[in-house]
């Protein structure tokens, strides 16, 4: 039986209008055979968590270039977990200084993809991680 398609929610938290990266990544994931839902702009953490629940996604990709990541990303993860979405892989991309990355990882962001990351890197990362998560859920 074919492996179930990976479902990804790409979201833009906060007031940041820079959506080039989000759209490019959304398209690359789609071309790689994933099902991609793009929320559009100006999403609050609540809206993103709700969309993740409704769409039953495996992955949430948060794109943020405004500098508000420390306020918005940990909160989004927390809301996802509160909704029982413990298995959802959360990754981020954008202008995020190196020194913030460990703090974001501690807050539950699995990986941060900075400027210059190839879309192939992101595709492979998501494929591997989701496969891992699916395996461990099956075995659980």
């Amino acid at each position, binding site marked *: 039986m074919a492996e179930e398609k990976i479902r990804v929610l790409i979201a833009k938290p906060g*007031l940041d209008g820079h959506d*080039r990266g989000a759209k*490019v990544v959304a398209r690359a994931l789609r071309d790689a055979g994933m099902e991609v839902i793009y929320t559009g*702009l100006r999403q609050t953490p609540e809206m993103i968590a709700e969309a993740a629940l409704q769409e039953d996604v495996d992955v949430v990709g948060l794109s943020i270039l*405004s500098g*508000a990541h420390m*306020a918005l990303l940990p909160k989004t993860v927390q809301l996802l977990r509160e909704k029982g979405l413990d298995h959802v892989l959360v990754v981020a991309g954008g202008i995020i*200084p190196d020194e913030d990355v460990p703090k974001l990882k501690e807050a539950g962001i699995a990986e941060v993809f*900075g*400027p210059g990351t190839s879309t192939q890197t992101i595709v492979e990362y998501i494929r591997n991680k989701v496969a891992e998560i699916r395996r461990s859920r099956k075995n659980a």
Partner: protein
Amino acid sequence: MFDKEALEKIKERQEQWEETTLQQWLARLPERDELFRNLSDMPIARLYTPADIPDFDYLEELGFPGEYPFTRGIHATMYRGRLWTMRMFSGYGSAEETNERFKYLLKHGETGLSVAFDTPTLYGYDTDDPMAEGEFGKCGVAVSSLADMEILFDGIPLDKVTTSMTINAPAAILWAMYLVVAEKRGIPWTKIGGTIQNDILKEYIAQKEFVFPPKPSMRLIVDTFEFGAKYVPKWNTISISGYHIREAGATAVQELAFTLYDGFEYVKAGIERGLDVDEFAPRLSFFFNAHNDFFEEIAKFRAARRIWAREMRNRFGAKDPRSWWLRFHTQTAGCTLTAQQPENNIVRVAIQALAAVLGGTQSLHTNSMDEALALPSELAVRIALRTQQIIAHETGVVNTIDPLGGSYYVEYLTRKMEEAAYEYFRKIDAMGGMIAAIEKGFPQKEIADAAYRYQKEIDEKKRIIVGVNEYVSDEPITIPIHKIDPEGERRHRERLARVRRERDNERVRQCLERLRNAAQDERENLMPYILDCVRAYATLGEMMKVLREVFGEYREPIII
């Protein structure tokens, strides 16, 4: 310009050359690629000669600087008379910190100011609005009321320095704040100069900092045209911007075409209001991006001037030559900056800035090397400014006007850019104009496609970005990273609370009510009402809330 006989000879000799010298050379050393293309995906030939522009007409296509069609420049002496304005886009944290940065830049030879506002300000929210969470001072300076604006421009001579403000949906309000600061200092509005970006169409297309739907947005913009023409004659009431379109992933051709078409829409809107085109068109200004492909950028700037002059004269019947001028600011391309080996960005910026100067820009912002990492440090911004000063004072490119004019390649490319722009104009015309095209998602889709193609080329190494997909190094980044003062937000919030407490709140209520009534009546120009609200220290968020309630909010079609 080239006589037929001479052209025939050139063609003949070129064929000979291809069969002999070139063939021998290629046999020994094949070219690195089968096809060379620029960033707009146009094929670029090995060599350009007069045969590539056989019907080239100097007087028709280039003319003389300061004269129609202005291809060579809008001023008769260009940089021999006056250098471009060195205008560094800056803003972060609180008004105090940004004011300090302005003074630092002016001390180091900057000749004009350019304000970056934070995202809550750009969307018309006060800092204490729940929507503003986490965003204070991150992308620019926070301005919630006149009190912040007074501090932002403290000690800056508004009658001597011009100020550009990157503000769109709430442009009329921030402009009113600036005008009231001048008024309170006794500086007449006729003496102040500057620019508000005020270009909402490119927000729908690319930058996405829209608030209201197109119709009331266009009304507000025309209100500023009308008001500016009457009371603030040296102010550029709009900066029609391709910069953000390009940053969103557009090609040079798309940037050129969509920006100029936006310009046509603003001119149409002004005329529809009943304004005489020559009354407001001289105050329309432009803002372009300077990206990596050097000659393509130069051709883009030259084509832009020629198209604008022609369309203003022929399509819109403008008679004042100043209405035909395409005056523009340029910013080097932020999207080309790399987080890897950030020092390399200094070189990218220098080359891009040189293209802007060779393209005849009126003012220039050079990006700082650290902008793919954080807001610029003092060191980084000083090097960026010095880059402009080196171009101006050391390279000699300023000594003659349009030094690349007459290059077979540049003239060929200028024509090609122009032709490609007109192709887009025809498509958008057929859709019923830019607003209809935006509602269909047309420019957004074109840009997203181009952005994706560009990224794929990088991922597949068809396009080399030094330090990113080639010449990679994993040495740690050692340049200093700028930090904003965490105290700034507290200071700002306290000031905002004090303003709300100490102002005459009954007067504020009345001013806001009058603004609401005026907004509901399409015949009213809103500027005087906004100015009254500002004078009473109504906050940005309060004014925008009133306008949001009357005008509604725009929801964009989601295009991937």
